[in-house]
């Protein structure tokens, strides 16, 4: 399979969270359709509650959908069981937002990575050596393998989360607000790391963020979501230059700092 082939296709996906404790039902995904091609980055931008995280969770099968289809290389993602489910696990991994909660505070980095590496289709023969290489690939020293998450900084923890996702050798990584909790300086180093890994391994990303500048920078194609719907989709620079939807225009106008940046 080469760059440009469709890996993942989602059609008319809808999901409603049932209301609990008097809260009204909430339509998190409303007729969402999209495609992800090999080695590309699909950026998804939208405010909180727009359904971005629900979509991410459906893609890694942490939650189901009410209707619609989702298909990965011919495997039905919504109904996969047994060998199919294992195949999907090995192909699609996720990196979460919060570096504070993405690692079990009571297990070392080594244990976390081992847990992931064991799931891979061909676990490396020299697994301890490969853990060290995984750490180096995300810019961490191997000494950190025996650290606990609280002994690492937020940026370092996020690097480990990326290493954990990559340990399975996936083809698709869903990144759900993976730099939103980080300082700008740390943010840029994580984004660089992701770009490098993509070039090297030919990964496809679903890159989700509420930060328009970041999504714009990372994506080959971009989707704007609001209230569970896709309101605009296309080439990122094209959308920035010529937004069609009023909400997209509002989003672009809200990016701070346009006034002081040298054009």
């Amino acid at each position, binding site marked *: 399979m080469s760059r440009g082939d469709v890996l993942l296709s989602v059609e008319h996906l809808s999901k409603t969270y049932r209301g609990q404790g008097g809260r009204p039902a909430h339509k998190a995904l409303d007729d969402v359709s999209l495609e992800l091609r090999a080695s590309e980055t699909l950026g998804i931008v939208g405010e909180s509650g727009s359904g971005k995280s629900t979509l991410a969770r459906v893609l890694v099968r942490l939650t189901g959908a009410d209707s619609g289809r989702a298909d990965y290389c011919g495997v039905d993602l919504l109904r996969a069981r047994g060998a199919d489910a294992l195949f999907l696990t090995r192909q699609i*991994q996720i990196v979460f937002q919060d570096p504070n909660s993405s690692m079990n*505070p009571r297990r070392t980095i080594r244990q976390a990575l081992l847990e992931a590496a064991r799931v891979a289709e061909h676990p490396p023969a020299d697994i301890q050596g490969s853990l060290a290489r995984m750490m180096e690939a995300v810019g961490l020293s191997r000494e950190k393998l025996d650290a606990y998450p609280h*002994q690492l900084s937020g940026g370092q923890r996020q690097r480990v989360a990326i290493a954990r996702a990559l340990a399975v050798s996936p083809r698709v990584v869903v990144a759900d607000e993976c730099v939103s909790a980080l300082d700008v*300086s740390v943010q840029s180093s994580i984004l*660089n790391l992701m770009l490098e890994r993509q070039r090297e391994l030919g990964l496809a990303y679903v890159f989700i963020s*509420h930060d328009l500048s970041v999504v714009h920078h*990372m994506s080959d194609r971009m989707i704007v979501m609001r209230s569970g719907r896709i309101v605009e989709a296309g080439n990122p620079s094209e959308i920035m230059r010529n937004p069609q939807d009023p909400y997209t225009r509002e989003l672009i106008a809200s990016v*701070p700092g346009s006034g002081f940046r040298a054009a």
Partner: protein
Amino acid sequence: MTATIDFDAPASPSASVAADGSLRRIVRGVPWPLLAAVALFFVAGAIGLVFLVAPDLKPLVFKQSLMRAFSAPLSRGGFLGADQLGRPLEWRLLAGLGISLGAAAAVTLIASVLGLAMGLLGGFFGLTADRLVTVVIDLTWAYPTILLAVVIAGILGPGVWTVIWALGLTLWAALARIVRAQVLVLREQDFVLAAQALGYSRFYIATRHLIPNLMPIVILMATLFVALTIIAEAGLSFIGLGAQSPTPSLGKTLAEGFSFASSSIWPLVFGALTMISLVIVLNAFGDRVRDILDPKGRVPLPGRRLRDAARRAEAALPARAVDRDAVIAVDDVSVAIHGRRGATTAVSDLSLTLRPGQTLGIVGESGSGKSLSARAITGLLPEGLSLSGGRVFWDGVDIAGLPAEKLRDRRGRFVAMVFQDARASLDPLYTIGEQVSESLAAHFPGPRRSFRPKVLEMLARVGLSDPEIFYDRYPHQLSGGQLQRAALAGVLVLEPRVLIADEPTTGLDATTQKKIVALVKALQREMNMSVIWISHDLDLVGEIADEIVVAYAGQPVEIGTVEEVLKRPAHPYTLGLLESRPQATMAPKSPLRSVGGTVPDPGDWPPACRFAPRCRRALAICGTTPPPMELFDEGSGRRLRCYNPEPGAAEAGA
């Protein structure tokens, strides 16, 4: 959890303790008298367990003298005297201790295993299981232990085992409830989701990820169970459902001591003393074990010893010339953290002035001391931290000279603060209207009702249109943006001279953020207020501030107008922050510049320029002599702490 400070210190000693969790490591953390008491109780408990579980082994295990303590009467008493059967009291107490502890161990085992299993089953194994578990928990919760004890006594006959089963089969419900609630939180944590995304089974996740994180609460409850058993055993023995004579349980000792108190008071006294000390020691030990098992270790309790000494030394220095027309003037302030190993400086060399109506932005990475600087300005430092030098003037008055009571009253009306987590700053139990009224009531006399018109007006001013409706809303009924508006109403209703906004829009959507920024700007104009806006986002600060303070490792490194600092950054750190953000003008997917490395913690600051290890432009002198804060640009008044400023800035500044 987020409220506690994250001491990102590498490899703290208590963390390595948890690393292997072995008994030896646990023991090392505990003071020896406590350890000796625990050891004694453990031995006694083991003896008691043998007595309970395998009565036939008794003659093999115990010496003659101890055997007699359990059953056979003896002619003479021991050195504490004898009980009514003539057994030596000290032996009887030891045996009683054993029986009570043995029973406690059995109860704790039953209740902990059952509680943990049921809590996990309810919280993590699907809705049907949860419904079932909840019903069982509620039923268990509803019937009293004593009723069960009567039923079990009917089956087994009264005795220690009746006590054990009656308690074991009721106490678990308390643990199960807590465990279930915690599991509901834990299962939404990213690390649990990540394991699920890796395809691991629920059973695997429960044992590897959930149970280790539930252990602190299990241990806490277990120590509670032990204490409860010891006390309940006494109660049940007293009413005849527990241990029967001649079994010398502590409860029985007390019960008999009570009946025979007229002949000798000592069995009662020593029995009670033993029981009380047992409960105290167990509690203390349980706390220690729980702390030590937590890899984050204990947050040290800081003392306040050094604060006053530092303050006195400071007071002896002559005051430097400060701008007394400023709303706020800060002169060479430093802040110290008082920890176990003495004081560490967290903020230093902080000097700035805030003029009427002006907006000052403070930017820097996480941990660079922005929040602490702001809190030093309000004279409201967190527990364990103190102003270790310098002065803060409000309207030209040194706040160190104000008595505490006066300072508190002035603070609300002079300087107000809003924070990132607006939800946390509002009380979930009161309506928005009540909370805004509360601010007024703290400073003005009169019944709450009388403030209503003013509160409604304020709610309208912060953009909560339909103030009558929002007045009666509770915080959980508001969105993030509305909460921040409510928090603003709560502090601005006092019409303060200064508003300190500590990352009030971080975590909000870009569109909401823009609206809050616009709101603060509008209110600032209306009320002629000065604003200090803290953020890690230089671009955002550029939108709102007149002047920017760039902070690094507890120190301002560049102070200047927004124009100067953002268009022509002079400090390599400022430029680094600016370049880290992706720009629309950059080629998509091109590598971003990045500063590299992280902010050092207080205590780990490099000796000279604190930025030197991360600096692209570092010179030899940067590692040897601390750079002073100097005027960089006469015209705009920009100040800079750097030996080798960015060339772009120098050209433009000249």
